[in-house]
């Protein structure tokens, strides 16, 4: 039997912003029809600059190609960068158009969409989720990160809509974090190098997981599932131990958190494999990942920005763990079709 390949984080972008105009009211077309915005499409596609080089290679266009045994979750990455936008009203128009374009152009029998919602207007986003959930093209809801932490009640309208439609949440950095006002800061202070920023991106996932745990978000939404994509996963055991330790010390301060945070991580949080290249000498650390924890990790290629492949995954983690990640990915993408808790929870 051929192994199924499940990519829970494949990026797709448009080549010309003009292609979004057909999905916008005329007045908004006029608003966006300006050189600085239209001309920025290549810069926006320069997802995260690892260097300050002056030349940017255009990102290849995404063309959906159904292939037996393969499934992809498409992230319209240009939508993520609204976390750095100043015009939050315009951002919603843009996201609406981008999602429409994505549904019409990037979805096929083997690819489904991560619907990008506005982090600035949860009520509007909840409405968007409800309106698109029935189309069958959406497998997850993608939230661009802002300084409002994911565990706060600010996000409840979005989570309510997701739970209502069995849609998991996925979040991914946009690349402007630690740089633009309005986007979340990175750890420390002002970073001198884009390399530092890229290295430290996983801290955003750490902080938001801690927020989800200590704010008790999964007590409000016990079936909610959240995938932190593109942040790697090696750091998770250390975070889980720290959170449990802090909870033991201070559980009287957060009486709404009834269990060690690690139990909720194992039930409600997912991580992804990219960048698998940072996985060195698994034998020196893989014993930190017990069977339950391994059930929470999925494969993502990060294409076209990254180049992780199933073959590389297998080379780094070994065929058994690699195969498990693919099966985990299938479980994640099937969450929307699952009424019960079987697919959500390993136990």
């Amino acid at each position, binding site marked *: 039997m051929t192994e199924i390949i499940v990519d829970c984080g494949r990026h797709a972008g448009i080549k010309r912003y003009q292609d979004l105009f057909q999905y916008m009211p005329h007045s908004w077309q006029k608003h966006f029809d300006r050189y600085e915005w239209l001309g920025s499409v290549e810069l926006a596609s320069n997802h995260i600059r*690892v*260097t300050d*080089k002056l030349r940017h290679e255009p990102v290849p266009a995404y063309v959906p190609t159904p292939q037996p045994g393969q499934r992809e979750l498409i992230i319209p990455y240009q939508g993520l960068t609204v976390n750095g936008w100043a015009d939050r009203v315009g951002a919603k128009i843009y996201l609406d158009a981008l999602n429409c374009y994505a549904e019409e152009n990037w979805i096929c029998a083997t690819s489904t969409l991560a619907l990008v919602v506005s982090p600035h207007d949860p009520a509007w986003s909840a409405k968007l989720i409800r309106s698109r959930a029935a189309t069958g093209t959406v497998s997850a809801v993608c939230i661009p*990160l802002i*300084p409002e*932490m994911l*565990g*706060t009640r600010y996000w409840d309208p979005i989570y309510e809509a997701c739970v209502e439609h069995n849609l998991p949440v996925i979040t991914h950095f946009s690349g402007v*974090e630690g740089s633009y006002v309005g986007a*979340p*800061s*990175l*750890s*420390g*202070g*002002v*970073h*001198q*190098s*884009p*390399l*530092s920023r*890229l*290295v*430290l991106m*996983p*801290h*955003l996932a*750490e*902080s*938001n997981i*801690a*927020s989800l*745990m*200590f704010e008790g978000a999964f007590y409000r939404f016990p079936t909610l599932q959240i995938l932190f994509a593109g942040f*790697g996963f*090696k*750091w998770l*055991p*250390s*975070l889980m*131990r*720290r*959170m*449990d*330790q*802090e909870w033991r*010390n*201070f559980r009287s*301060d*957060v009486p709404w958190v009834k269990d060690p945070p690690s139990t909720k991580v194992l039930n409600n949080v997912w991580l992804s494999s990219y*960048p698998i*290249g*940072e*996985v*060195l*000498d698994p034998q*020196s650390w893989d*014993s*930190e990942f017990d069977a339950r924890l391994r059930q929470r990790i999925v494969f993502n290629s990060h294409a076209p920005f990254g180049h992780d492949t199933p073959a590389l995954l297998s080379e780094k983690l070994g065929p058994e763990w690699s195969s498990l990640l693919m099966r985990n990915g299938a479980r994640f993408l099937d969450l929307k079709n699952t009424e019960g808790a079987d697919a959500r929870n390993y136990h």
Partner: protein
Amino acid sequence: MSIESESGVAAMPLIDCDVHPLIRDINALGPYLSTRWRDYFELGSAWRASDNSVIFARARDRYNHPNATYRLDSLPTNGGPAGSDPEFAISDHLAPFGITTALLLPQEHYGVARFGNPLAAAAYERANNEYLIDTWLPHDDRFTLAITVSGHDPQSAAADIRRLGSTPGVVGIQLLIMRDMAGSDRFDPIYEAACEMELPIIIHQNGGEGCYTYSQLPAGGAPRSYGERHSVLTQVGAANITDMIVSGTFERFPQLQIVMVEWGFTWLSWLMSRLDYLWSCNPSATPYIKHRPSEYIAKHFTFTTQPLDETTTSVELAAMFKVPHLQDMLLFSSDYPHYDTDNPQTIMNKIPRAMREQVAYRNALRVFGPKIMRSQNSAPAAGIGGGH
């Protein structure tokens, strides 16, 4: 009580790299301040009493500790805040655990991280350093001190390092970091002086992280509660390590040693491999570094044990210590007298036998030099029996 070595037989020295002294009465700093600065501080908020009778970094409405920041049983029997009585610290902590050396990391200084006035910061730090040199160091030769400087005025800090750095008992420089990352060349005068005096730089949380507009912070937004913030505070340590490497600090100062206190260490395996991988993908991203980033970490950094992660299985405990080069990078620390003080015997028994001697004293001896074994005048490299 004594700590067993690898052989499990002989007792060995134990160097505690994180003990916090406090000043019993803040007025004791008076003689160490000029009239001008005494007036300045007496009229300002710094002199006002707080729960600890001292200033502290955190605003009282932000990340209040749910209980108390110190162990209730560490309050001196003769009164005063926890950590304010050297004799009580000996009888309560050093003597029972056979601690050979306690590295004193003064915590009144941590409030200085929020000072806006660099001259006031320098005056306050100077007074505090001199007070501790005069009071704690002569009290018992098991005490050693990290004098404290901040980045407000690096030239002034460097002058203080040169002035006080050769004082017997002074073994390191505690550097308060504010908005500027530790890799900034702004700190070069401090690093230059530290290298010249053969003193390591010690970086400890100052309590202001995530609180002030000009302090460093964990990633994301503002955590809501003390426990949530404390879960992710280690990120600030990781960020500064990254910044120092990427900015080429160790190419500028090849002898510089950095002791990271209370930032944890079990995330190191992730940081080292991620730095190496992302740098290998694009070495031109930083023109400063010449070796794999993890090599700089192994060569220039040490990390203290407290708070040691609590594990649920022996497999997990063993895995935690598999960080590359960890046996040469780990130093014992207790964080006495804070609420989460790690019991020396409990912790040392959790350290794998193969690295126990390094963690107990050998790594500290390498980083701080023989002067860290002040209580044992001519400390040989190994085979020292017992503590006090």
